[in-house]
């Protein structure tokens, strides 16, 4: 942090943070999905590292990287559970916003404006890499996933979620979320960049990761809630993979 911090700037970032964290605001779809995302993430990490959820700071001692951290919707829960968290985002303006909110929450999180590739090059190592809703936006998924693997310690856990590519996901994610519900700005997604679970498994394997689990996130329009499904990966889905080697494997 520099010493030339402008109070007006801080107020602006706090206002933007409030927008990120408003459950009925611009990021409503993320907030609606966040409970199931967190369920999956925390259960996988607890299972892999033999931690007991519901106890005080169960993730103490784990170093976690969140790629595409945005306003810190995943970083803050991980820090609250005791993990040592680094959040990176390619959008520079998200960093002071996330920092402002972490300060309000009394959490110590290392936010950086950088990319996975640059982090890998610098030799950073993590127990867990969170790679949520990013892979469908990158230009070279294989190179990107390879960087993710390099960022993991041997035996480390890679959690990656994205959107399937089929007529239903086109209808739900693009027509539904962007045009009908206006949940997301038009043009947020490019359907041809969506990846099927088989393609993702294949890409991860080629990047040197060992896929171990996959689940669907299913939206129920009647109860207006997301839930986790073992079978329905037709639109949103999440995967767990391990970096070979190490004792955790």
């Amino acid at each position: 942090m520099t010493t030339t911090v402008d109070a007006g700037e801080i107020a602006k970032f706090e206002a933007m943070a409030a927008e990120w964290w408003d459950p009925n605001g611009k990021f409503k779809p993320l907030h609606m999905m966040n409970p199931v995302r967190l369920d999956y993430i925390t259960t996988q990490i607890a299972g892999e590292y033999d931690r007991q959820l519901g106890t005080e700071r169960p993730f103490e001692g784990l170093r976690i990287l969140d790629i595409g951290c945005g306003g810190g919707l995943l970083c803050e829960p991980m820090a609250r559970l005791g993990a040592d968290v680094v959040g990176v985002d390619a959008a520079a303006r998200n960093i002071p916003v996330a920092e402002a909110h972490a300060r309000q929450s009394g959490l110590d999180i290392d936010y950086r404006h950088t990319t996975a590739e640059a982090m890998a090059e610098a030799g950073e190592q993590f127990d867990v890499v969170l790679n949520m809703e990013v892979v469908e936006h990158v230009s070279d998924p294989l190179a990107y996933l390879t960087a993710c693997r390099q960022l993991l310690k041997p035996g480390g856990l890679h959690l990656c979620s994205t959107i399937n590519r089929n007529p239903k996901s086109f209808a739900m994610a693009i027509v539904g979320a962007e045009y009908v519900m206006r949940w997301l700005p038009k043009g947020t997604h490019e359907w041809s960049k969506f990846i099927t679970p088989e393609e993702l498994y294949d890409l991860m394997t080629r990047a040197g990761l060992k896929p171990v689990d996959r689940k669907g996130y299913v939206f129920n329009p009647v109860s207006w809630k997301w839930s986790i499904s073992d079978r329905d990966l037709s639109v949103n889905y999440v995967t767990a993979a391990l970096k070979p080697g190490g004792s955790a494997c």
Partner: protein
Amino acid sequence: MDNPEDAAIFRPMEHDLIIVGGGLNGPALALAAARSGLSSIVLDALPGEIRQQDGFDGRGYAMALSSQRMLVNLGLWDGLVDNAQPMHHIKVSDGRTGDAQVFLGLHFDSAEIEEGPMGYMLEDRYLRRALKAAAEASPLIETRDGARVTAQVTSATGATVTLDSGETIAGRLIVGADGRASGTASRAGIRRTGWGYGQTALVCAIAHEKPHEGTAHQLFLPPGPLAILPLPGNRSSIVWSERDDRARAINALPDEDYLAVLRPRFGDFLGEISLAGKRFTYPLGLTLANSFVAERLALVGDAAHGMHPIAGQGLNAGLRDVAALAHVLDHAHRVGEDIAASNTLARYQSWRRWDTATLAASTDLFNRLFSNDNPVLRAARDLGMAAVGALPSLRRGFIREAAGLTGDLPDLMRD
């Protein structure tokens, strides 16, 4: 930490929950939260002696099966079961002005659903005492009697309340469990929607000659509904409604004359009756908080919604709030979210407020429909009762609804 200044900076919030209200819902929430490892302070404006009076004061609750399951899950039921009366049947009847004999229109039998009795009758004193004792025994719960809140402040980072003693208490989330006239809600600027019915509920317990066989009766009489709810032994709890002025006059009568007014309303199927406790009156009205949540604040029970006690749903709805809020807080705590963040509280609000508004509206409609001697409405409701009585599946639906087994059940209310 060696440095006292650091200790002050890093001192954690004193309590996760600051619960305002020491009735039933407040301690129940503290106990439920403690199961998730969350700490609470329960502030009761009433002095402890008032809460600890031992004798039967005539008040009892018709606990839905879902509420009973919650007491099981909170570890309280074993200490209560001996004093609880299972309700095996509910008979709904429609009475006509001037008719001494009661027409029995509808009969719900718990034998029709597999879950067991539809609910239990429990005297207020046992429930209150069990909750208080359990809260006092929990290392995560601090209770403060005679502590009136005079001010509250919330911010993005925390919440504090100030007591009339001048003491300030800090925490993460303020919960208003302080009843219909909730100071917590009004201090947060939450307005209420509601209206009175011009009716008052008269509540008492009676001893009777003949056994009640575990049957609850709901009689719809033109002056207002009357419920006869079975207590252990040959005793029942009576809740009847009258126009405000009539209720005032009846309540002013000596015991014998009071009974003389009550007797003809439900005939003689229980034999001779006498009073078995104090008499109470409660003005009836429907009030719904316009929001159940605010910044770092949530409302439960009557603070969120005061209902017509027509189907005994007041306490059950309150416990459902408690179970739902505890469920949302437990999940947030497990996955590392801020338990009092607006996105966490929004889940509680969306879970409970719609349920409650629907229930409040339907009990209101029910009351308006049945507290009426209009011949057209009378024909309509007789037909409706006959239809419900004739269709087993519809009847089972009503039984499950009365048992509190419908809707999205919080973990604490599951088997």
